[in-house]
């Protein structure tokens, strides 16, 4: 299958870049700092003579776990965008695309192959980072957050969604313009998400609506919020507010919207690239 030839090429190209090396290095530094930090916080809280009960302990552990996954989510999303932002535009600009598209394969195979390659790389990266965090937390404290698999799937979807947007942009825009587009959209989602949180906290419906509109524009922040909601401890949900949890939690419909969005972004990338003169 030529799709897998392209996927392998993409994976190899991304893997040999300094971006991946830097991301892996940063990831390892994060895991090291996180592990040490978690260890001492855990030791302090458990050995304190006014020792909190297991309920409060798990509260603290969950909070720290969410902080860790917040970083993992951020790093994975950055990886998704930074590695893919120039994969089409760069090959078009340099002309390396000419020897590919003149082969007996269809344009969609190139885009889909690249997508697969990046999905493979991102999945491995997420598995390594999130897996590392989970293993550290478990090894030190024996704590496992609820619904971890569902939460990680949502973070994964978040990265895939941005990957699709970045491919679609790269099919028609220059690398720089595409980078501005994707990070701009990411920024809108981020700010919109927080406006929604605060709006929901102070019960301002307009602010909540602004957030919802921004989530419809690009549901990346909403997916993280939902992931955080899935993995937060039941007590936090009951109490209502922490930096990593959601006062207004994105609904299942938003998750479904995120899936559709990711698929449509990939289809748009294929369509734009297929129609393009090279």
């Amino acid at each position, binding site marked *: 299958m030529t799709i897998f030839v392209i996927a392998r090429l993409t994976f190899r190209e991304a893997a040999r870049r300094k971006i991946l090396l830097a991301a892996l290095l940063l990831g390892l530094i994060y895991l090291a700092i996180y592990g040490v930090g978690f260890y001492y916080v855990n030791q302090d809280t458990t050995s304190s003579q006014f020792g909190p009960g297991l309920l409060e302990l798990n509260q603290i552990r969950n909070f720290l776990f969410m902080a860790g996954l917040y970083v993992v989510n951020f790093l994975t999303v950055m990886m998704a965008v930074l590695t893919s932002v120039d994969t089409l535009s760069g090959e078009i600009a340099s*002309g390396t695309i*000419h020897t590919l*598209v003149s082969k007996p394969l269809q344009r969609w195979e190139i885009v889909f192959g690249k997508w697969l390659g990046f999905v493979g790389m991102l999945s491995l990266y997420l598995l390594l980072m999130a897996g590392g965090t989970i293993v550290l937390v478990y090894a030190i404290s024996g704590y496992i957050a609820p619904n971890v698999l569902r939460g990680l799937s949502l973070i994964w979807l978040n990265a895939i969604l941005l990957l699709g947007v970045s491919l679609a942009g790269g099919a028609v825009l220059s690398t720089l313009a595409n980078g501005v587009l994707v990070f701009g959209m990411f920024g809108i989602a981020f700010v919109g998400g927080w406006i929604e949180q605060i709006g929901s906290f102070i019960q301002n419906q307009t602010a909540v609506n602004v957030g919802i509109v921004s989530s419809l524009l690009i549901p990346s922040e909403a997916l993280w919020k939902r992931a955080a909601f899935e993995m937060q401890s039941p007590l936090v949900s009951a109490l209502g507010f922490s930096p990593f949890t959601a006062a207004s939690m994105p609904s299942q419909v938003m998750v479904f919207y995120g899936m559709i969005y990711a698929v449509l972004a990939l289809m748009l990338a294929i369509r734009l690239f297929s129609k393009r003169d090279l």
Partner: protein
Amino acid sequence: MSATISTRGLKKEYGDKIAVADLTLDVEQGEVFGFLGPNGAGKTTAVKMLLGLISPTSGRGEILGAPLGNHRAREKVGFLPEHFRFHDWLTAEEFLRLHGNLYRVSSGLLETRIAELLDLVGLERHAEKKLRAFSKGMLQRIGLAQALLNEPDLIFLDEPTSGLDPVGRRLVRDIIRDLSAGGTTVFLNSHLLSEVEITCDRVAFIRQGEVLTTSSLQSLVEGELTVEIRASNLNQAVLDGLARWGDNIRADGDHLSLTLSSEADMPAINRFLVENGVDIYAIRPKQLSLEDLFIQVVGTEGGL
């Protein structure tokens, strides 16, 4: 013989700019077809349309019996792009393996083919070297090998010798000749007229996106030629007598020029002049070169 490439009125517009106005061509199987024109005439755009890299604004065409843009047709097509920019982080061998896989060459066959081709283009000692470390000429050679991986029925070479030294040029010429002998149709985009003159069977001239004329190089060689004669003792009877071999006779003092239908008449003319008491100082055939023809057809403005 069937047409390997056949196009009717292919046109490509970019907004107001017309890159190719009317491309109507028939290239026969096994032919070495030269596509000539000044820079910016639309040669590369035309090739890209034939390969399906660019979709035409209007018109239609077929390569190897399939409509333009059909990926199946490209199974037996090779292409060496003009600027030969490749994934330069691959080694020569990896690069050929990648493109062989894209051509769906079976893996057993591919390894022998890669070895053969590296040998053919003289890069067997650089198989393990990354393309990043290649010179321009080496890149063009590996690009050519890439275009031959699938043993193509039709190969497009866009300025295939631009980066090569004379040895490399001869290599490309030999490869083109072998391909043609094996029945492969070669579509050669070039502005190096001497190259085209040596290798091509037929040429098309293109200017401002329009095919002005196509002609076979054979007719160029065998066609009419003008002979210039410098001689004294010329008289009207002699001039009249020359009319049986050629026309367009012009005499100016000791200089005489006439157009012959064939080179074979030259000895007879020589004999005739001598027998009629003319003293000959020089007889010079002036063959029309491809360069003359190019300037005649395309004009001297060149590419702007």
